[in-house]
């Protein structure tokens, strides 16, 4: 054990801990900028050397958490680039919760602005998809609804349909569902050349995705423009009538009966309320 100094600085602990976190998350440590230097025994190893161990461990732990949430991004950019990108992200976005499942929501926007990655235009949307997938996997189950009571409703057009907590809606001008699928472990390898990663499709045929959970599996389901609009309207709490108008405007051939039946059977629409 190192030599024990009997001088105890009362009420110093809170400041020490602020300094500790600052040293771990402020970037390169030097003799001049290591805030913990006055508090630690540096007789064998310098303060920046010792704090560097904690900085390395902290950044590795947070990177590991991001890697679990964004495995496809890691695969797309490669492990080394991913680590370097995470380091820059972490130094800007310090964790604020003890639950690391909450961490990383800003990663998609960061990638869009990160100078070494922003030319890869599809990365932001793939990251949004992965964050949505992560959220769907963690969400609560929906409570059980007795759908037979729907028959007693006087004006179905004024109903507000409720989406299951696991539902996430994501749109992109890139084929992000295919990119995601091709980067899963169990997907047979196909030719990536089939996927156009370079060009925005000018909204002609956007990828519209519904994410939700069925038992132990999180599902990524492409949906039509009408369905996507209907789901967005439900998500905003709009009444059924307004949701139908919006969906039909987006897709003239949209069949609300077929879609609603499908969405209820899938558990995506999990209930309704009569008054907002």
């Amino acid at each position: 054990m190192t030599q024990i100094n009997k001088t105890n600085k009362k009420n110093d602990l809170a400041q020490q801990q602020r300094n500790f976190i600052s040293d771990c998350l402020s970037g390169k440590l030097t003799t001049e900028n290591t805030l913990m230097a006055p508090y630690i025994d540096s007789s064998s190893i310098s303060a920046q050397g010792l704090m560097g161990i904690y900085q390395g461990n902290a950044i590795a732990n947070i990177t590991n958490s991001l890697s679990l949430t964004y495995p496809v991004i890691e695969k797309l950019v490669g492990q080394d680039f991913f680590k370097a990108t995470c380091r820059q992200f972490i130094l800007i976005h310090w964790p604020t919760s003890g639950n690391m499942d909450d961490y990383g929501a800003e990663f998609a926007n960061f990638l869009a602005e990160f100078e070494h990655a922003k030319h890869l235009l599809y990365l932001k949307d793939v990251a949004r998809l992965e964050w949505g997938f992560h959220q769907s996997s963690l969400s609560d189950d929906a409570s059980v609804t007795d759908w037979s009571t729907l028959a007693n409703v006087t004006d179905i057009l004024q109903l507000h349909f409720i989406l299951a907590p696991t539902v996430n809606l994501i749109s992109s001008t890139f084929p992000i569902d295919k990119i995601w699928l091709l980067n899963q472990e169990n997907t047979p390898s196909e030719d990536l050349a089939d996927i156009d990663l370079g060009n925005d499709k000018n909204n002609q045929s956007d990828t519209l995705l519904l994410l939700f959970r069925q038992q132990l599996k999180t599902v990524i389901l492409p949906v039509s423009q009408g369905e996507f609009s209907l789901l967005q309207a439900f998500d905003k709490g709009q009444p059924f009538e307004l949701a139908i108008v919006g969906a039909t405007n987006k897709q003239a051939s949209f069949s609300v009966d077929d879609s609603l039946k499908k969405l209820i059977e899938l558990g995506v629409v999990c209930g309704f309320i009569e008054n907002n």
Partner: protein
Amino acid sequence: MNKIKGVGIGLRHRHFKEFIENKPDVPWLEVHTENFFSKDSTSSKYLANIRQNYEISAHCVGMSLGSATLSCPVREQHLQKIKQTIAWLQPAMVSDHLSWSASDGVHYLPDLLPIPYTEEAFEVVTQNINHVQDVLQRQLLVENPSSYLAFVDSTMLEWDFLANLSKITGCGLLLDVNNIFVSAHNHGFDALAYLESIPVEAVKEIHLAGYSIDTIEGQEIYIDTHGQKVYDGVWQLYEKAIERFGAVPTLIEWDTDVPELSVLLDEKRKADAIIVKVLNKQIA
């Protein structure tokens, strides 16, 4: 009476299906409580299934018992989530570390950060443990940390700090033999003297894991990475621990680069053999 006996294994995601389908012969499993905060999540559903066949110990990493800020919304929220998780998981034991992670309730590092062994820190940790035990309405086990630096204003030795915490708060101790070995190397203290200073009745669980070796400014530092097999020196220290504390429930921990389950089962069998060896020696 403790429902957990023998040598258990830390349950990790890649082994979920194997525990559900093959039900390997392991007396108990330990989980990181924070990975199951959402009761309906996919991971929690797997765990609920596994729980039907195995006793569980809930090992927490984020209560931040050493945080100087005694009460803050972020930490209280975290504690409430632990309480909710424990309510459905019904673990036989609940533990966390003699360390901190949250500063001012604003920033958080997912790591087990060291505290100075001062009177102020002792007061802080005592109040935090009392609060946690009040909220959870059960005994908490507190794990000794591994550390890479020493504070110049420490006035107590780590083992005395832990022994006194146990005495004052009634918490149990989770003795991580690998952490003692790692810290003994990094700080140059006698690991056996550490073991001998810990009150026998306080130790409710033992952890075993692997460490990695790094070189900083020409000095060899052991880092507690939980990514390797248990080293020979740690096995030898474990044998001394079993001699002193008896057949305390023991856990094989592996957190990074988690291997196939068979590797962990081999490590478990080594621990089993040491317990049998020590007990036979004591009977003879």
